[in-house]
Structures are given as C-alpha cells and as structure tokens.
C-alpha cells in the first residue's frame, strides 16, 4: 500500500488504511461554480467495502464532493473542475467513460426520498429496465433481492403494485436504496440519507448501511456526528472546501490530530 502524498492545502489527507484496498481515489480535486470555488485541491482515498463518512459544517463542500463522485455536476454548465477522481484505477472524467455507465457503478441516495411516481415494483425495476429487455422472472428476482437487501421486503411484499408515494418517509428512503442496489453498483453515495427521517427510521437506515458494506463501498455525508461515529469506518472532516483531517473514525473522534477538528466534533465551532 502506497502512502498518499501529502499536499500543501490538505494536511489531513495523509492516511494509511492498509490492509483495505482503494476503491475511489481523489487527487488534487478542485471545483468551482462559475467564479465561486467550492472545493480546493482535495486528495483522499475511499477504501473498498468500508463506510467512509464526510462531515463538516454546512457549505463546507461535502455534498459537492459526493456529487462529483458520480459526475452529477455534469448537468450544471457553470461547474468547472480540476484534478482527477479514479474509480478502481479508471479516471471517471476520461472521454471513454460513459457517464450513464459510471452512475450505474456509483449509485446515489439523496437527502430527501425521491421515489418516482410509479408503483413500488416499477421504482425498483426502473434502473434494470434502462439496461435493456430482461426476462420478467429475472426482474422479479432482482426486485425481491433488492427489497430484501434494503430490509423493506416484508413491509411491501403484498403491495408491490401500490404507488411508491403511499409509503412513509423512512420506507421511501429504503425504497430508494433498494432501487439503487437493483442496478448492482460498486459504490453507494449517501447524501444525508437520514436527515429527513424520524429516529426509528434513521436506525433502520443505519443498520442497513452497516449490512451493505459487506458487498459495497459506501460514502456517507452527514451532519450528525453520532451517526458518523456509529456507522462509519473512516471519517473525513471538511471545512471551507478543504479536507482538514481524514482518519479512521475511532481515531478522529477520540484523538483528532488538529485543533480545528476537535473544536468541530466537540461543538466548539465559532
């Protein structure tokens, strides 16, 4: 395992997480909205089949970084970027990368549940159907597997044809996770997935995240420090578009290297 080179503006990026293997490698990444810088010279690695949490105050750029990982910024014409992001060694901005294919490999779950206005079944099958015709039996199997994986199957198996909008918020969020799992991603990006949910639904989603990491690389953006401590293996602290400190979660929360980090996690932020 090579030790990542420390860059000038991200002193905390220095981490050795062997024996874990790198899934996503971000190197010297910066991003601007028009003239406004959002991320600057950011380098870190996301380990495979682990949960990595991005924490930091509002506007620190953690969601922007997350969206950069599956190129959702492509929609916005004002966005410019520098640096590289590699997924399993492949530059995601390379011209030969099909962005739709990339987004299948790097799935994303958003802050507010966004099920499509169709039945529960069709929501989960949506991504599969984009990949061309498939025998109905196979679609059925994958839908069931995805709903079981997101711990929703028992609650909805009798009403798969009901509108997805008839589910509760927590169920909707797990449905969205199931929908993403159905296309078989390698990486799952979660943008504050539990911030709109009640405590019980939040616990269910967190348990789901812990279960999923046996087969998936998860990246979690959260405002909730306890949540980051509960579910993540590694935590990156961002502030003002820069990576301040990146460490195994236990280390970062119990023994942060920098005072800025400590101030934030103990709530002494100015």
């Amino acid at each position, binding site marked *: 395992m090579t030790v990542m080179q420390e860059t000038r503006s991200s002193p905390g990026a220095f981490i050795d997480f062997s024996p874990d293997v790198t899934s996503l490698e971000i190197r010297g990444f910066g991003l601007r909205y028009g003239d406004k810088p959002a991320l600057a010279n950011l380098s870190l690695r996301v380990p495979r089949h682990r949960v990595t949490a991005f924490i930091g105050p509002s506007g620190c750029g953690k969601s922007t970084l997350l969206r950069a990982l599956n190129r*959702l910024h492509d929609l916005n014409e004002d966005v410019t970027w520098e640096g590289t992001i590699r997924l399993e060694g492949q530059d995601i901005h390379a011209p030969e990368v099909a962005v739709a294919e990339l987004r299948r490999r790097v799935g*994303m779950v958003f802050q507010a549940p966004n099920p499509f*206005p169709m039945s529960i079944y069709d929501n989960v099958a949506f991504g599969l159907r984009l990949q061309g015709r498939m025998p109905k039996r196979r679609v059925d199997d994958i839908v069931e597997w995805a709903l079981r994986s997101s711990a929703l199957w028992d609650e909805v198996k009798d009403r798969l044809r009901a509108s*997805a909008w008839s589910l509760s918020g927590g169920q909707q969020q797990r449905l969205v996770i199931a929908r993403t799992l159905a*296309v078989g991603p390698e990486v799952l990006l979660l943008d504050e997935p539990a911030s709109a949910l009640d405590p019980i639904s939040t616990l269910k989603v967190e348990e789901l995240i812990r279960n999923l990491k046996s087969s998936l690389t998860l990246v979690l953006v959260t405002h909730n420090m306890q949540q980051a401590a509960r579910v993540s293996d590694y935590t990156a602290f961002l502030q003002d578009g820069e990576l301040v400190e990146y460490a195994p979660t236990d280390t970062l929360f119990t023994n942060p290297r920098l005072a800025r980090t400590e101030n934030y996690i103990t709530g002494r932020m100015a």
Partner: protein
Amino acid sequence: MMTWRRPSRRAARSEGPWAWLAAGSVATSLALLALLLGLLAVRGLGHFWPAEVSLVALDDGRQLAGWAVKESPLPGGDGRERLYRTGNRDLDGAIWDWVDLDEIREVSHPSDLVVLERRRWSEFIGRLEAVETESGERISGESAWPALERRLTALEQHRASIERLRHQVIRPLVLRLEAGEASELERERLSAAQEQVREQQAALPKDILILETVDGRQLRQPLTEVTDALQPNAMGVGEKVVAWSQGVWRFLSEGPRAANTAGGVWPAIFGTVLMVVLMSIFVTPFGVLAAVYLNEVAHQGRLTHWVRIGVRNLAGVPSIVYGVFGLGVFVYGIGGHLDDWFFSSSLPSPTFGTGGLLWASLTLALLTLPVVIVATEEGLARIPESQREGALALGATRFEMLTRIVLPMAMPAMLTGVILAVARAAGEVAPLMLVGVAKLAPQVPVDGEFPFLHLDRKFMHLGYHIFDAAFHGGDVQAAMPLIYATALLLVLVILVLNLTAIFLRHHLRSRHGTLSK
C-alpha cells in the same frame, strides 16, 4: 361527557366587506353563466317543441294560423302588435304576419290544424282537406290524416331503401369502375342496380295533398316534398316529447336546408370536432417538443428568456392575424406549390391552393401553440430536481430521464395545455373564414373513398354556421331559434372535448397520486 366542538363559522362571516365582495363576484359570474346557458337552452331547444298553433280571428273577418313569436309597441301609437309565424311562403310570400292586438277578436286552438314540414317554401300551416292517390282516389274527411301518416311512413321507407342501394351497392361499384378494375359481371351488376334505383324512384308515391289555409285558399302539395307532418293541437304530451326528440335528432343528424336557416347541423358538428382533433394532433407534439427544448435542453440565458417572452406574447396576437398568416403561407404559399408539383393536372382549379381542413387545422395549431408551450413548460418546471437526479443517478441518459420520468410527470400539465388549446380553437371563427371554412359543405371530409380523410376539402363549422345564419341568411327571424340551438351545441361540443381531456388528465393523476410535495 365531553362534547366535540368546532370553530365558529361566524368568525368567517364577520370578516368584513371584502369577503362579501369576493363572494359576490363569484355569484355574479355564476349567475351570468347560468343565464347564458339557460337562454341558449330555452330558446334553442324550445324550437323543437311542437307548440300549439293558434287560429287568430281578426275584427275584419280575416283569419290566420301560426305561432306567436314576440310582441312590441305599435310604431308611433299606443297599443301593441304581435308577430305571428304563419309559414306558407309559397302562398303569402312571407312567413311572418304582424297583428295589432286590438284587432284580434278571438284566439283558438282547433285540433284539426296541421303543420307540414316541407323541403321548400317553409312549413305549411292550415288544414288537410284530402289525400289524392296516384290512381285518382280521393281520401277525405276523418280518414285523410291517418292516410297521410301512413303514406308518409311508406315514402320514408322507400327513400331509405333507395339510399341504401346507392350507398352500399352503386357507389363501391362506381369506384371500381373509375379505377378501371371492374369486371364484366360487376358492370352488369352496376347497371342492374341503377335500373333498380330508377324503378324505385318511379315507384315513389305520387300522392297529392289537397290543403287549405285557414283563410280558405287551396293548395295542391306533392307528398314527395313533405318531410314531416304534425297536428300539434291534437297531440298529447307524450307524443310531443317523441316529436321533440325526433326534431332534436334531425337537427343533430341532418344537413342544413334553406340557406342554413333550417334543417340540421351534422356537417358542422363533424367539421368542428374533426378540425379540433386534427389541430390537437398537430399542436401537441410540436408544443411539447418546443417546451422540452426551452426548459430542458436550451442554455438558460438571455436568449431563452427573450424567446419565452416572445412565446407568451404570441398567445395575445389577435386570431385574425393568424388567419392572414395561414392564408398567405399555408394556402397560397405551400398549398400553391403543392398544386404545382402534385396536382398540376387539375389546375387551374386548386386542390390544396385553397382553404381546406388541413390549412385550417394548421392555422389553429399555430394559434394555440403558445398555450401548449407555456402550460407544458410550467409543468416541466414544477417537477422537482430530485426526480431528475434520481433517474440520472440510476444510470439513465438524459433522453431516458426525459421520456421515462419527466414527460410522464408533466403529462397532466400538457393535457391542461391541450384543454386550453381546444377551448380556444373550437370557438375561433375569424381565422377560419380565411383558411377553409365553408358556408355549405354537406359532404363531410371523411368518407369511404380513398384516402378516407380529405384534408383538402372545405368543411363546415358550428361557429361559422352561427355567424352565417345570423348575418347572411335571408330571414334572420326564421333562423333565430336555430342560431340559439347551434350556439348551445357549440358550447356542448367544447364542453365534451374538454371533459374528455379532463377525465384523461384525472386518470393520469390518480394513477400514482398527485405531485403534492
């Protein structure tokens, strides 16, 4: 025991004058609408009711029979006069008679008065003396009326069978003959059928009705000219209802007569609906694509901003301007060239180089385009960004995101646009006068003849029919009830078209709940 309490409604009532003002506005609008529909319904539908015929005896011994239409003050004097519709244009030269109320001695409703609807000369009002059959037999007295009814029924059956023969046997054969495909056998069948028609026509009852007006003039009326015969004063309510429904049905199903002042409006109903449907077919994909481009594809800069303002302002351009544009560009421009290229054999008589169904629908599609664009754009803008991102994050391309998520979600808004477009287009008359509507086009533009839908034909339109009957008919007074009925029908047609779209939209919305968040 606890009682359930609710907030007092008095609180709402005591909110002051503005609430009353707002409620008053709604009430006024509703009342006006009810008045409008009520007027149209009473005047229009009442026309078909077989009203009692009055026999009016005047002081000077003159007698007349007819229906009272209206009363007004005598010009330059006191007293009032009353207008009677007396029919009998062939005898009197007019179908109206003004009578001074003071001169009326007696008004009665004898049950032997008959009303005959005729193909020409308006209706006959008077008495039936006798029916003279072909063989010279004369049926008079009590048995004359039943004889007339019997013979009229027989005549109608005769006509129907001739019509069937023409439609089902002769026309297809003639078409094959024209196409040069007819075999010798078919030629023989054709001439046999034509011979049959000639025979049947010759066999039409040639009875003569001996009629007498109430003031004693005699008239010999061939039965073949009569379309309907009633004795309104002898009819019970049940019979009148039957006669009324038959009248309404004939109004809906037949073509116009007597320079659009009588008869039915079927070609106009058909033309209106067909034109609106074609217009929707043209405008919907075009408007939706334009809205998708403006909202989803185009760079949101100053140019799109100005294009949007332009589109919104296009909706305010007076419709006659679109008519002029359609005439210049579609009819003379494109139509003229089409004729030069494809229909030069029939020049100088134009095929597409004159107004017709196609150009009228296209002109109206252009007229309603801004409405569809604006409504669709609003629908697209209402779709949350999270839905689009959700689709993209699952590996959808932008095209897949549009067709599978965004457009289905915007469907109700698109239908709202189409509803507005239909409502506007169905009521437009001004541009149609330039690009294809006809005063009289009894042939509807759809028939069994290839290519079945004749886009080059002129067509009739309910709105234009009203305009024509009201301002260009010879006798506006006679056409007035039909104008009301046609106006009512126009409102109903638009209502039906709109309801269809509204039900469709409701169905789409109810499938997965509404976009409430």
